[in-house]
């Protein structure tokens, strides 16, 4: 009988800030951008004032004048995350990371290996994390990934929910829940199901697949299986390799300055390519996304004939894409560069050494930046951005202009992406 644990840290970024700084404990704090702020994480003290994520920091301040706003320190969260997963790894090698602050553990074998049944093992993890790291996690233990994930998220903070592997108990827990707890059911699908009178998971479970597919299409069968707790997804240890490399930036002020936007995109491409080279890979496709001030988004992609790991190869594509995409006379709020169609391993060598020289140059620049920070060596477009920064534009959310040399490391970027994704 399988036993799976899902854990989810409570108000992770805010909890880490409170753990790291004693003076913040017990007080309403949020982690978020100082300028154009969106609350990335709110402590439970802050939530009592009705503050939630994602909400503008200004709105949060109105709700709670005493609110403490802390700029995000992603490398710190990454460190805490590594510690949590380190503790998790002491219980079982089968750990599936789901983000900085949540994951699945397969505890099926702990009784034999650790002389501790899964529930005891889970309780120990929760205690250890709290004692060592001063942050709390909520946990759910169940036979399926679906159930334990719902259980850990439903009862917070410091929840500890065990659903015994008995069909009556399992369905007794699952069926009364609102349909939004099912995987893949967002607000749109939820409204759709509700309009058909399906508000509880139990109702979905009794629905014939044919009827259900009238509502949700091809995902009907999977959905009904979930509603009946039929879920044999295993806990997968190996985090799949990155399928794409994405970097994005929200401007401090929405802009119409094409040169500035283009320079920003190129800088984001530089950063993405630097990560790509560190992983020893190449890509063939580049995607650019722009978000207008009214949140309308446009995106487009172009591919090279040959894979590359040198950013200069995609600069012309980026400029072309930006020109094509930016067809409204509206200010831009956010831009994103994404590199995909990843090539691993083999690289074709070059007869006249031209490509090799360009790669070498890029690698040397990576090393200089690693050692002296992002300003250690600058391209022309970096100067465009410098100029804009002096005029008071530029600067990404969260990042302070004066960065120490070791910042800008990969850990920080990774955390930033996850932060972006967790905002949905």
């Amino acid at each position, binding site marked *: 009988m399988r036993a799976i644990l899902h854990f989810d840290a409570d108000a992770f970024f805010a909890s880490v800030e409170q753990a790291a700084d004693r003076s913040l404990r017990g007080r309403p704090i949020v982690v978020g951008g100082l300028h154009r702020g969106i609350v990335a994480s709110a402590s439970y003290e802050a939530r009592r004032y009705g503050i939630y994520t994602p909400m503008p920091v200004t709105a949060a301040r109105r709700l709670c004048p005493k609110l403490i706003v802390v700029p995000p320190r992603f490398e710190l969260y990454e460190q805490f995350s590594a510690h949590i997963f380190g503790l998790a790894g002491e219980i079982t090698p089968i750990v599936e990371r789901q983000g900085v602050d949540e994951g699945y553990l397969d505890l099926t074998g702990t009784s034999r290996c650790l002389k501790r049944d899964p529930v005891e093992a889970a309780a120990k993890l929760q205690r250890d994390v709290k004692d060592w790291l001063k942050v709390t996690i909520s946990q759910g233990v169940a036979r399926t990934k679906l159930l334990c994930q719902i259980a850990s998220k439903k009862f917070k903070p410091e929840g500890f929910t065990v659903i015994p592997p008995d069909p009556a108990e399992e369905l007794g827990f699952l069926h009364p829940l609102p349909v939004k707890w099912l995987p893949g059911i967002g607000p749109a699908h939820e409204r759709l199901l509700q309009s058909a009178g399906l508000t509880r998971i139990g109702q979905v479970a009794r629905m014939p697949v044919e009827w259900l597919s009238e509502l949700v299409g091809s995902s009907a069968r999977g959905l009904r299986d979930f509603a009946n707790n039929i879920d044999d997804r295993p806990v997968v240890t190996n985090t799949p390799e990155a399928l794409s490399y994405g970097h994005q930036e929200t401007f401090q002020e929405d802009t119409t300055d094409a040169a500035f936007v283009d320079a920003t995109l190129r800088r984001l491409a530089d950063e993405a390519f630097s990560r790509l080279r560190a992983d020893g890979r190449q890509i063939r496709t580049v995607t650019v996304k722009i978000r207008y001030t009214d949140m309308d988004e446009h995106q487009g992609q172009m591919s090279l*004939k040959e894979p590359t790991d040198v950013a200069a190869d995609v600069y012309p594509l980026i400029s072309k894409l930006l020109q094509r995409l930016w067809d409204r006379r509206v200010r831009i709020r956010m831009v994103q560069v994404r590199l995909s169609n*990843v*090539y*691993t*391993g*083999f*690289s*074709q*060598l*070059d*007869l*006249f050494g*031209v*490509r090799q020289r360009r790669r070498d140059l890029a690698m040397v620049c990576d090393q200089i930046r690693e050692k002296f920070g992002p300003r250690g060596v600058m391209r022309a477009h970096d100067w465009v951005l410098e100029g804009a920064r002096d005029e008071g534009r530029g600067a990404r959310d969260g990042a302070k202009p004066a960065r120490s040399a070791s910042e800008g490391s990969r850990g920080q970027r990774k955390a930033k992406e996850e932060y972006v994704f967790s905002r949905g």
Partner: protein
Amino acid sequence: MQVIVNRAALMEVLNAASGVVASRTTKDILKCVRLTTVDNGMLVSATDLEVALRVHVHQVEVKKPGDILIAADKLGSIVRESTDETLTLEGDTQSCHIRGQDSHFEIYGQDPREFPPVPELEGTPDLEIEVENLKTLIDRTLFAVAKENTRYAINGVLWEKKGKKLALVATDGRRLARSVGSAEQSVGEDNSMIVPAKTVQVIQKVLPNTEGTVGIRFSSNLVIVRAGDYVISSALVEGRFPQYEEVIPKDCDHKIELSTEEFLSAVRRASLLTNEQSKAVRLAFGKEKLVLSSRAPEQGEATVSMRVEYNEEPLEIGFNPVFLTDALRVAGTPTVTMELKEASQPGVFRAGAGFLYVVMPVNLS
């Protein structure tokens, strides 16, 4: 103008012209072919302002001399779809009528006087070479030419005239093919030019329609090739072709003689389990043996062995299989010699005295 023309002969010419006629252009006139009556037949000419073709069609009966300009794709389709042995073409600057036994087409024409001039090869050519020889030279090099490379000069084939030898060289930056052949006649000084890939393709396409010798005119901005009734002229690629001699290794330690057929088959089979993202075949030379292997992540692996004369230190090197098969297909000799130094150095293939192929390996680590 009014002519009666043999349909098969006209079709052969229009096929060749279709490789020249501009497909994407705003100038409608460049989508046309020009038909002009001459003393003993009719001239068909086409150009996209870079490459130009003029062909003398003999199987024509001229009823009334003249000149017409007509959309190449429409004329081509009509001639292809018709079943008559001969077609009658009749027209003026306004329109052109094409008549078969049971059909009549009218195509609105353009003024032929606006069509750009298409050069003829006048006087003695600088070089004359057998059709078969030139065809071999082109077949052995054209495949290696760069496609839309930012280094403009390698988007063409280098033609080098040295005494009575003609060498064609093409590279895409990862591999280089050079083929040398003997000319029948050669006048003037040694010379070289970079001919656009499209032009070489057009020449390759028309050579099978001709026999005898091909005359070539080398000049500083234009190449003119006359093969039988066909004259192809083209602007040259500007820029400097890379110093290719420097990348041909001269100090390879390992020389291996391979049966062309057997090696080609082995590479093709080993390449069945490569994919777009990991395109490499590993060549492992051991005692008297060559093992070719490949791996496609999440699909599978392939191993093919063949016997070779090899008695030196084991050597492993990776290649893009397409780069190998491209060259082996056109080698044209029962055996090829492969020369290697080490895994990160180029491999060299030689087929007879005339063909040399340098290919950079793939980094396997």
